[in-house]
């Protein structure tokens, strides 16, 4: 084990851009329109009466401002074993592909004859996801994983309404350790939520499922593995039990990385599934760009999917909007198409063998990480008595360190940034494990990266024992010190825009 070195992030005295510049400063000077151009008069109703309140800066000053801001972040390029997010490299080649005018300058209202290229990519990527899942049709409207889960609940609602059973099929069954978007979206769609507890094996029992499902069950939504990382070996029985009760069953593939290429949701009997293109399929996420939850289902459910769907007739691609049983729009137009193109590029780059190998690497990397973390005194894996293998991640706990030193998982997250490591992911709600953290070492990370990450954790454990205040007052090497957070308790103090800031503080 080596002792990691602290870093020092740039700390610029960088005001908000509205506070920079001076009257009359310009980035570009546009020539006056030539005299021979016809004069266009806009309708009065859309004419501004005042000037927009924009900052006035030169191009150079704008560049300097944003360079400084970028230097004060960790850049989303550090070692980040940020669990449940499946951090991957976002290829610059794919990024440049989406900047090409063939994609960047088109609009969904164009005639489909002028959109054949992008429709072909959407169609072909649909085929790739079909081969990974066995489903019959995908749609990319959802703007993230939770939105795709919501798509499922909306499809289920339309499906049961069409069969005249929506009044009786009122319940959605899920696990307490499933991604919280499952109960949340089901509740948003009007279903009652039935949670299953984790029992002795680290996953919900089949008996609990049998007791939970009935003729009232509309839908079962589960992850496998869930955040505990244990693959539920009874999953085929789960599907059988759900089907016998007449319910639909949905596979939330949020944790697909450890099983990709190894199983097919359809072969296991599921009616529908969801992939997160911004996680598993190498498209950017969070600060890197918008997300896509790719929702796929069987022919039985396809009529209820959100429209439009991309269809191919002969050599021509078209948008099928004539779907009378559709649940309607989940999101405008076709979703975040550039992200789909990036995911398509990732899948084509990896190939079937590459995807299969990547899941092997992610399971090996995670188990190597677990093995080394277990050697740190004061850090424990959740449910230590369960011997079933963990896949691409599992929940860990800092409880022994916290009990001994008072330094908890929030403090660790803050201190990690001082070593140039992105703060770790703690846990989804509800927190079943005290002082939780959830690392995930996917196929991206080299052994050296994983070792560095663990060395930083070990170093902060040492610091917690020797200089706890150093950890509790972190970060120290970052441009922004620890925030008290009071402001988030009081809406009167929130200011998400300059206008709101002026209103509340000026």
């Amino acid at each position, binding site marked *: 084990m080596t002792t990691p070195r602290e870093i020092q992030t740039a700390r610029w005295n960088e005001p908000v851009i509205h506070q920079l510049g001076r009257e009359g400063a310009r980035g570009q000077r546009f020539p006056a329109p030539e005299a021979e151009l016809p004069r266009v008069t806009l309708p009065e109703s859309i004419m501004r009466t005042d000037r927009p309140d924009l900052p006035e800066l030169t191009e150079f000053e704008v560049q300097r401002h944003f360079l400084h801001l970028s230097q004060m972040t960790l850049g989303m390029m550090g070692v980040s074993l940020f669990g449940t997010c499946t951090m991957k490299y976002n290829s610059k080649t794919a990024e440049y592909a989406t900047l090409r005018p063939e994609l960047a300058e088109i609009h969904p209202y164009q005639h489909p004859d002028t959109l054949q290229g992008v429709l072909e990519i959407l169609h072909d990527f649909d085929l790739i996801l079909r081969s990974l899942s066995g489903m019959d049709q995908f749609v990319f409207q959802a703007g993230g994983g939770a939105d795709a889960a919501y798509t499922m609940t909306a499809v289920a609602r339309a499906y049961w309404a069409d069969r005249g059973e929506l009044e009786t099929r009122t319940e959605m069954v899920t696990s307490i350790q499933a991604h919280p978007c499952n109960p949340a979206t089901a509740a948003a769609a009007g279903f009652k939520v039935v949670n*299953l507890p984790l029992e*002795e094996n680290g996953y919900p029992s089949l008996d609990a499922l049998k007791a939970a499902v009935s003729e009232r069950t509309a839908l079962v939504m589960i992850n496998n593995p869930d955040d505990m990382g244990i693959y539920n070996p009874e999953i085929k029985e789960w599907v059988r039990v759900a089907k016998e009760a007449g319910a639909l069953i949905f596979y939330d593939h949020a944790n697909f990385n450890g099983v990709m290429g190894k199983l097919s949701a359809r072969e296991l009997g599921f009616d529908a599934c969801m992939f997160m293109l911004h996680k598993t399929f190498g498209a950017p996420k969070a600060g890197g760009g918008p997300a896509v939850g790719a929702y796929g289902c069987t022919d039985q459910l396809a009529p209820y999917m959100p429209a439009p769907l991309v269809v191919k007739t002969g050599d021509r691609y078209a948008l099928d909007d004539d779907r009378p049983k559709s649940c309607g729009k989940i999101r405008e137009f076709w979703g975040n198409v550039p992200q789909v193109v990036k995911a398509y590029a990732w899948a084509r780059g990896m190939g079937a063998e590459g995807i299969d190998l990547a899941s092997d690497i992610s399971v090996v990397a995670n188990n190597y990480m677990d093995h080394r973390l277990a050697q740190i005194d004061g850090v424990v894996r959740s449910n230590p008595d369960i011997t079933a293998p963990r896949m691409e991640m599992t929940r860990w706990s800092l409880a022994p360190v916290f009990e001994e030193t*008072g330094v908890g998982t929030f403090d660790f997250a803050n201190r990690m940034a001082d070593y140039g490591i992105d703060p770790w992911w703690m846990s989804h709600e509800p927190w079943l494990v005290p002082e939780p953290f959830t690392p995930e070492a996917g196929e991206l990370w080299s052994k050296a990266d994983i070792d560095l990450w663990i060395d930083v954790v070990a170093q902060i454990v040492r610091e917690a024992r020797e200089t706890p205040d150093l950890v509790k007052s972190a970060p120290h090497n970052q441009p922004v010190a620890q*925030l008290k957070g009071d402001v988030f308790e009081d809406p009167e103090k929130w200011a998400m825009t300059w206008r709101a800031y002026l209103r509340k503080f000026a």
Partner: protein
Amino acid sequence: MRLGVVINPVAGLGGAVGLKGTDGRDIVTEALRRGAEPQSGLRARHAFEILARACPGVSVLAGPGQAGVDWLTGLDLDVQILPAQPLLGTGADTREMVAAMRGQIDLIVFAGGDGTARDVLAAAPGLPMLGIPCGVKMHSGVFALSPSTAGHLLADLLAAGAGRSSLSEVEIMDIDEAALRAGHIAPRLYGVASVPSRPRRMQAAKGQPGPRDDQAALALAAQEIVAGVSSDTLLIVGPGRSAGQVISALGHVPTLLGVDAVTPGALIAQDACAETLKALVAQTSETRIVLGVTGQQGFVLGRGNQQIHADVIRAAGGRGALEILATRTKLAALAQPCLWVDTGCAALDQSLSGYVRVRTGPGETQMMRIRAA
């Protein structure tokens, strides 16, 4: 924030020598005879060492002698001593000291176990408290994880200042020691106390809202129960705060430590005994039994609610008549992922066994397995 400190010097004595608890002077004598060594003073000192290091010179109001100040000497604290009183070596000491501190402090920090927590609650209901865990039995929700976490929590509270910590309500539980020595776990609810929460800090990423208000969710679940029953349904409710939400939903004040009977239209009986309940059930065509869950052990019947007799449960219709309310937090913290019943009738316990739906919020249930204790 003004702190009061009370140490129960005999707390925990019974544990190491196999006595399951230290309630009562005879047991203290027996524990000492068996060679038990007092630990609570040292454990309390450890917590205050951490506080003194983090917040030097902070003032505390401490009990006299072994009940406080003796264990704080040499620490960088401004210790005010409560005027000395003879120590009797019983729970009366705690009660008198806490009563004398009322009005002078904002938070009472005590070193002890469930018995001590009960004494603190009895002397100053409504006063926020924090327990330094020293007892044999610690089923109440007032205890920090360890003496050092208690110290760190106090330091964080003082450093955070006013307005950054919130209070949460927890249950004061105790277990009948004589029964426990006979191999029988009999937890009982003694009341509700407020404890300071750890000052909230920001979640580092994926910014999520703070934990939800579990009791508010139960209050909404209770309204669903009330809305779902007919006007002549008899509801037998309690004890505990969670089940009591049904009584509150009907506009009455629940008997926290007892069992109430209501219909949607009227409060029928408060703190009812078994005979009353039997008579009420006999006159009613439909009965629902609304229950809470005891913390950690997960008992729903037979602990603290023996008034709900086996005959009452059978007459109401058995497992199908049960409505169980519990917060998700409490279910997650159970020692084993199941609920227990001990109605005194083995056949009934067997028939109650199996999965039930526990209501955790509006439109939200959790499947839990009931087992015969």
